[in-house]
């Protein structure tokens, strides 16, 4: 069936084109900047067209199409890979290609001055290819492979400015932290394969996400596998307790933060959970864990975001928090709830990051919000779009996508039959989200220019020239146009999933949907929406009241909350000391294990090889002595004897013919004498 549908047969082109672009980009010279950007953007553009075609194909008849093929033989079985197209994959494909394309275009301007421009686009394309491959994978194995490539590109791009020690360290941290989660995913995958004998998600009834193989598993096994797979999602999506890498990942270029660490890659964890949802949903415990982890992450990261000073770190913690919401949504309400927020979040968070990048670009690399202020005046497009993104993220009622998607999650959490605590956590998180975003916007865009009035003690003569606010400028069109497009979607996307017309949810669940305004009033939805709106207003108002009315005058001034509760504020600024906790426990443990292993390696394990080596050396010496003093000596002596004899005989053959004749004569004489005497005798 699948092979007859052309779009499925050519689905592999969607990830293959960016991969090809990455391959070509890797071979380009540093100077071929325009060509590198062109092929990267071109490949992404064609992928977008193909993704739209795939989407359109499913649009009038939502269905699940797949194409499997044998990959390699393991024992007597063939390991099969395959790709699939279902509404979930189609929606994600369109989102990733579209947001990716916009960010690629944005990057041409943002990275304009960077000398490693071609390398940047090579990595971006590689990322896009792997991410798209992850989305269409119909096999946990293929998904895992793409998952790892995505992790690699994340590492490469976080450490893109590798000459900065902080960036190199952040890249390593991201790679290693996500590897912890990936170990769980790998174990879960192996376990699943051991139990069901297949890693294909869908295989006409025989896939591991389908009823037949799933019914083979016991409840405990199912929960174990589901939780192990969730470990991978926890690592990739920055959930507690593996969130520590994501804020540090902001060391990478801002388009990377927008594309990988906000819109797409970190959402891959949520996508994974959505993809294995049939497995998760069979085991209620697993979904419970997902919901709790999501809720705790949402509230934790929102709290920490309140006290951050780096514009990108605030957004990073916000991303962690929103990913928590997505997990919560999947845990309590199912795939469609989580994915709706994922899609909406991808657009408005990409918008926020790109806006932040625009601000950073305009301020010549300044990232500390305390050093900014008044940016609204000379970056009006950035300000307007950033405001739209902020309102969408806060969930400003009715007109912004975040409102509808977050409300769907809160509504599902409210109706969760196990506990209502996640709902309250999520609601407080929503309040905090509105608060910290207002704080950030007030710091960055309102007030007036702030700059430490004291001249820079290190290089006083250069302060005037390098003062970022003197050189501040609005960003070029390649940056502002993607911002405006994303802002448009940040508003509009909300309307594809409202309770009155839950088109996206129905599409993901392969149902048909209709407009029904009566839904708004059912199930206590209206009071809930009212309540969450009030929370958002409260957050916005509180933020404005604390930060907007009296913006701080100098960058060194204490934060308003810092004056109020210094101890709490510092704890939050440090991310509740999670990093320090890990440094004290896990890292110290690892360090001691390394010390012990080093000692063992040096003195115990290597003792055996050393002994063997000494023994071998001894044997070698004996062998050598025998050879030199017995075998060689004897042979040499023999040879000398032969040579001496030869020399003696050679003396007889001196070339004087008459001597020979003399010997002959003497011999004949001796013979004659012998014969004569012998005859007599």
């Amino acid at each position, binding site marked *: 069936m699948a092979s007859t549908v052309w779009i499925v047969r050519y689905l592999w082109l969607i990830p293959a084109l960016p991969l090809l672009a990455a391959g070509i980009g890797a071979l380009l010279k540093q100077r071929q900047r325009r060509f590198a950007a062109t092929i990267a953007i071109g490949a992404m553009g064609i992928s977008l067209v193909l993704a739209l075609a795939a989407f359109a194909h499913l649009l009038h008849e939502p269905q699940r199409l797949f194409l499997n093929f044998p990959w390699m033989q393991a024992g007597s079985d063939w390991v099969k890979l395959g790709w699939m197209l279902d509404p979930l994959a189609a929606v994600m494909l369109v989102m990733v290609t579209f947001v990716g394309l916009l960010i690629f275009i944005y990057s041409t301007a943002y990275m304009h001055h960077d000398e490693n421009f071609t390398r940047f686009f090579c990595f971006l394309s590689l990322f896009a290819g792997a991410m798209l491959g992850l989305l269409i994978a119909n096999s946990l194995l293929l998904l895992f492979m793409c998952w790892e490539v995505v992790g690699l590109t994340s590492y490469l791009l976080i450490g893109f400015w590798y000459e900065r020690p902080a960036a190199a360290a952040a890249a390593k941290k991201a790679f290693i932290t996500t590897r912890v989660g990936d170990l769980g995913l790998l174990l879960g995958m192996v376990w699943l394969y051991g139990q069901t004998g297949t890693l294909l998600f869908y295989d006409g009834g025989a896939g591991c996400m389908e009823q037949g193989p799933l019914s083979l598993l016991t409840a405990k096994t199912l929960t174990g596998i589901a939780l192990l797979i969730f470990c991978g999602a926890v690592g990739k999506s920055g959930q507690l307790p593996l969130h520590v890498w994501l804020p540090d990942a902001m060391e990478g270029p801002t388009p990377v933060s927008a594309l990988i660490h906000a819109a797409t890659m970190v959402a891959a964890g949520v996508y994974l959970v959505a993809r294995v949802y049939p497995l998760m949903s069979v085991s209620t415990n697993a979904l419970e864990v997902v919901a709790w982890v999501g809720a705790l992450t949402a509230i934790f990261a929102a709290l920490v975001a309140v006290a951050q000073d780096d514009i990108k770190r605030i957004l990073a913690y916000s991303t962690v928090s929103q990913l928590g919401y997505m997990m919560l949504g999947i845990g309590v309400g199912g795939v469609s709830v989580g994915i709706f927020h994922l899609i909406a979040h991808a657009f408005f968070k990409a918008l926020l990051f790109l806006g932040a990048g625009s601000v950073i670009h305009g301020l010549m690399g300044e990232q500390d919000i305390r050093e900014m202020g008044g940016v609204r005046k000379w970056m009006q497009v950035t300000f307007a779009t950033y405001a739209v993104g902020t309102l969408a993220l806060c969930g400003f009622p009715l007109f912004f996508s975040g409102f509808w998607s977050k409300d769907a999650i809160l509504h599902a959490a409210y109706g969760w039959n196990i506990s209502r605590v996640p709902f309250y956590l999520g609601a407080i998180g929503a309040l905090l989200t509105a608060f910290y975003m207002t704080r950030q916007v007030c710091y960055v865009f309102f007030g007036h220019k702030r700059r430490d009035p004291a001249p820079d003690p290190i290089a006083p003569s250069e302060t005037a020239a390098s003062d970022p606010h003197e050189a501040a400028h609005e960003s070029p069109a390649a940056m502002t146009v993607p911002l405006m497009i994303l802002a448009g979607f940040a508003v509009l996307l909300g309307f594809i999933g409202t309770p009155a017309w839950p088109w996206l949810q129905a599409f993901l669940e392969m149902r048909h949907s209709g407009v029904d305004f009566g839904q708004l009033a059912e199930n206590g939805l209206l009071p809930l929406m009212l309540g969450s709106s009030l929370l958002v207003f409260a957050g916005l108002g509180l933020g404005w009241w604390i930060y907007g009315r009296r913006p701080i005058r100098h960058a060194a001034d204490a934060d308003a909350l810092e004056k109020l509760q210094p101890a709490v504020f510092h704890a939050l600024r440090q991310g509740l000391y999670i990093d320090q906790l890990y440094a004290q426990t896990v890292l110290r443990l690892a360090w001691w294990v390394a010390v012990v292993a080093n000692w063992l390696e040096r003195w115990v394990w290597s003792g055996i090889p050393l002994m063997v080596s000494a023994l071998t050396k001894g044997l070698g010496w004996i062998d050598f002595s025998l050879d030199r003093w017995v075998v060689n000596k004897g042979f040499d002596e023999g040879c000398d004897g032969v040579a001496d004899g030869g020399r003696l005989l050679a003396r007889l053959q001196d*070339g004087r013919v008459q001597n020979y004749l003399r010997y002959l004569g003497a011999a004949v004489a001796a013979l004659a004498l012998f014969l004569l005497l012998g005859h007599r005798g």
Partner: protein
Amino acid sequence: MTPLTGCLLVSSLLFAVGLAGALTRRNTILVLVGIELMLNAANLNFVAFWRFGHHAGPSTGVIFGLFSIGVAAAEAAVGLALILAVYRHAKTTDLSQLTGRPQ
């Protein structure tokens, strides 16, 4: 003293003279002459044993001697040719210098 003994004495003398010449002369040609003398001593023995032997037939010792002389002639020709070749090569016929070793 029988005629045979006398013949044998003469041939022995002839052989000794030839041997002495062959051993002592430095000139290759004279060494060859000495060898010819020794050869003819042997021929003399053939003829003497034929003449004074018991079963003398017309075609025993004499024929042997004739063949031996013929071979000796051929040998002398080859020897002289060799000596000529050596002389052309080494510009000498002095046997003490013709050792085959570098001088």
